[in-house]
């Protein structure tokens, strides 16, 4: 088991190498000039060129790539052009926000999605099923930013119970922290919960049709026990998979929600880095997102083993 985890961790390395190469390649070919962005619209061409040289942007592709790899393997991911700090520091500052947002969003999504999916599947083809699945469709179809804006205008503004944006650090003011993350978490949770509900329903339906469920019913087992112990337990693998995907997506930063609610998370970091062509920061954040995905994947695989004893890795 430990060997398995170690082997998986080692396999992260080539993936991350490959991803960073692709990102480097794309950034090299996408037009854009950080020196121009730093100096502003009214800078003279000569000033822009001088800054390009001092930033090493006049260098060809291969030396730049090798230089970056050389420093990255020593743990030096460079300094952000704009944020006045190292790439590692910049990411480390944003991670708590993203982690908290992911946690809250995921909990809400599971609390809504799993029960809704179970009810819909057990009451298949009734008005309850139609209502739940209609709601899920709506949740999937509504873009996240729109849901966020609706919550701001119809919950935050009239009641004043929640701020319309901004982030309060957890250790500075725990209650304020919760208030600042409630609406963004709800927007994320509703949308992702819809996805989980659909997956739960279809996975449950598949199991409900199996012979052993009929047998269980025939021998007079209580319906509650059948659903919980026999059906749900055996439908968990696809549900866990989709929860894993949701977690990966959220860890990569909920860009729209972070923008609407002005939360300083990883998603806004990567967007603003791209908008300013902050090359070292883009590289660093993409690597971080890649790592999160790989780590979530690993956790999901380990969870499979827990919920289904037949799954064994060696």
């Amino acid at each position, binding site marked *: 088991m430990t060997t398995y985890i170690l082997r998986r961790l080692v396999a992260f390395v080539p993936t991350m190498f490959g991803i960073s190469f692709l990102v480097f390649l794309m950034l090299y070919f*996408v*037009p*854009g*000039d*950080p020196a*121009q*962005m*730093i*100096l*502003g*619209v*009214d*800078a*003279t*061409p*000569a*000033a*822009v060129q001088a*800054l390009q040289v*001092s930033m090493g942007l006049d260098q060809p592709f291969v030396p730049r790539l090798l230089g970056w790899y050389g420093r990255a393997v020593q743990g030096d991911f460079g300094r952000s*052009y*704009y*944020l*006045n*700090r190292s790439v590692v520091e910049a990411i480390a*500052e944003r991670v708590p926000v993203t982690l908290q947002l992911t946690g809250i969003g995921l909990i809400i999504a599971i609390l809504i999605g799993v029960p809704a999916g179970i009810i819909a599947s057990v009451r298949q083809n009734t008005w309850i099923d139609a209502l739940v699945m209609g709601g899920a469709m709506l949740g999937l179809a509504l873009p996240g930013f729109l849901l966020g*804006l609706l919550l*701001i*205008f119809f919950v*935050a*503004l009239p*009641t*004043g*119970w929640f*701020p*319309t*944006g*901004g*982030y309060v650090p957890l250790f500075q003011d725990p209650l304020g922290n919760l208030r600042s993350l409630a609406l963004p978490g709800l927007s994320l949770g509703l949308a992702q919960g819809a996805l989980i509900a659909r997956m739960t329903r279809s996975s449950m339906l598949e199991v409900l049709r199996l012979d052993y469920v009929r047998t269980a019913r025939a021998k007079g087992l209580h319906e509650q026990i059948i659903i919980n112990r026999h059906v749900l337990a055996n439908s968990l693998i696809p549900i866990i998979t989709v929860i894993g995907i949701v977690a990966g997506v959220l860890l990569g930063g909920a860009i729209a929600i972070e*923008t*609407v*609610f*002005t939360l*300083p998370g990883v998603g*806004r*970091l990567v967007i*603003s880095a*791209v*908008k*300013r*062509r902050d090359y070292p920061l883009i590289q660093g954040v993409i690597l971080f997102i890649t790592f999160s995905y790989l780590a979530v994947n690993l956790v999901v695989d380990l969870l499979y083993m827990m919920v289904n004893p037949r799954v064994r890795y060696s």
Partner: protein
Amino acid sequence: MSRSPRIRTVLIAAILAIAGTSVAQTGGEIFRAAMQTNPPTLDVMTSTAFATRQTAFYFFESLVAYDEEFDVVPMLAESWEVNDQNSLYTFHLREGVNFHNGDVMEAADVVASFERFIEVSPRKSRFARVEEIEAIDDSTVAFHLAAPDATFLAALASPLSYAAIMPAEIIAGQEVGELEVEEMIGTGPYRLVDWQPDRFVKLVRFEEYSVNDSLERTGLGGAKIANFAEIHLVPVTEPSARVAGIQSGEYDYAEALPTTQFTQLQADPGVETYITRPGVWYVLEFNHSNELTGNLTFRRAIQAALDMESVARAMTAGQEDFYRLQPSLFFNEQAQWWNEAGAEAYNQADVEKARALLEESGYAGEEIVLLTNRDYDSMYKAVLAVANQLETNLGMNVSVNVLDWPGQRAFEKNKEGWHITPTFYSLRFDPSDFESSFHSSAGRKFYNNPVMDAAMERGAAGATLEERQAAYEEAQRIFYDDVTALKLADVFDLEAVRTEYVGFQSWYTPRFWGVEAE
């Protein structure tokens, strides 16, 4: 029946209590402003970015500044003398001006600051004539110029990237981007105490600020009274989040609000709206190195065709309060420079004439590429409107290439692959600032016209205001005759302040000195 009023009372009390706590959190001594972007740096000497100077105005001051009427007024200098040849400028500094670190400003600080400025500023070429900066005594500084320069004061006062006066001991040997937050020591009414990029800039009142009481508060000069203990500038990039924030009282001020929300905000009793004048003017620049757009007749055809009213409506969602159609390179508010030279060529909307010119130019249906971006919504809408007019009215073969803003800026540097690109010109405090747009030395969009160069040079060298006005009027006429670029329209922003505050004056940039709680 008897119970429901009591429930209502309890509910109202609860809501008031909650509302009360949120007001206590945001009001009082901290003034919070929702800004549209995060500054790339706060070292105003090294960048012309708008967000940089907007922030720096609170802690960095210069020798001279522009007032509300766009005239140069004293700031850290008390007075100055100019010799007859416009080649020696002597400044007398105000005495006893404190830096944020407790030092008192002296001539040596001015010399060191200016030396750093002409080393690191993107506008340093503007000061190429400065030969020597001499500290005559502790409170007198002389600038010796190698050649006459009538625009020296105007250039010095220009806030685009300005010679902020900093303590000599701090800036010695510093380079671009090397100033740390704690090294941003100026003489302004607020001190910079914290900057978390993309999160906030925290400014704290400078208790030993030396108020320049020789003048009322005006523009960037005069008496700057700091009424708030702290000012927090918070970048809120999503426009609707700024709207929600100012309406809920989360922020006390918000800039660049969507003009489509104007009516809604006007109806809100908690919010006072302002239309920011002057704003910027939008412009389409031509690729002068291209065969088609390098052809004057072709450019004239496009100039003749466009109906600016409909372009401006597209840019502002049809809100008439937020655009102005006027031909000048200068804003109407810049009374000493505004003129009407070449006006007949602006906003012609003459399709017949345009068709004739297009035929004369030899255009044979080649593809015309318009660049644009979605970071600036106004540019995107403007280009779509223009493309539509060229297609339907002139039957041109138009394609629109949508990039992001940095991508567009980089793409424009290619000689091939594009014909027309949008941008905006921010307020040019002094007309000589147009050199970076029109003079061939700037190489902007490969434009090179010796007649334009001569007019710009006459304007920069002119000894009297009349001479300079004549030169820039001529430059404006050439701008239209030669179709250097196409002016679309002046466009204004919407900004808002909570009604709990009085004393806000809308101008080129928000300034929170002189603003106070009612």
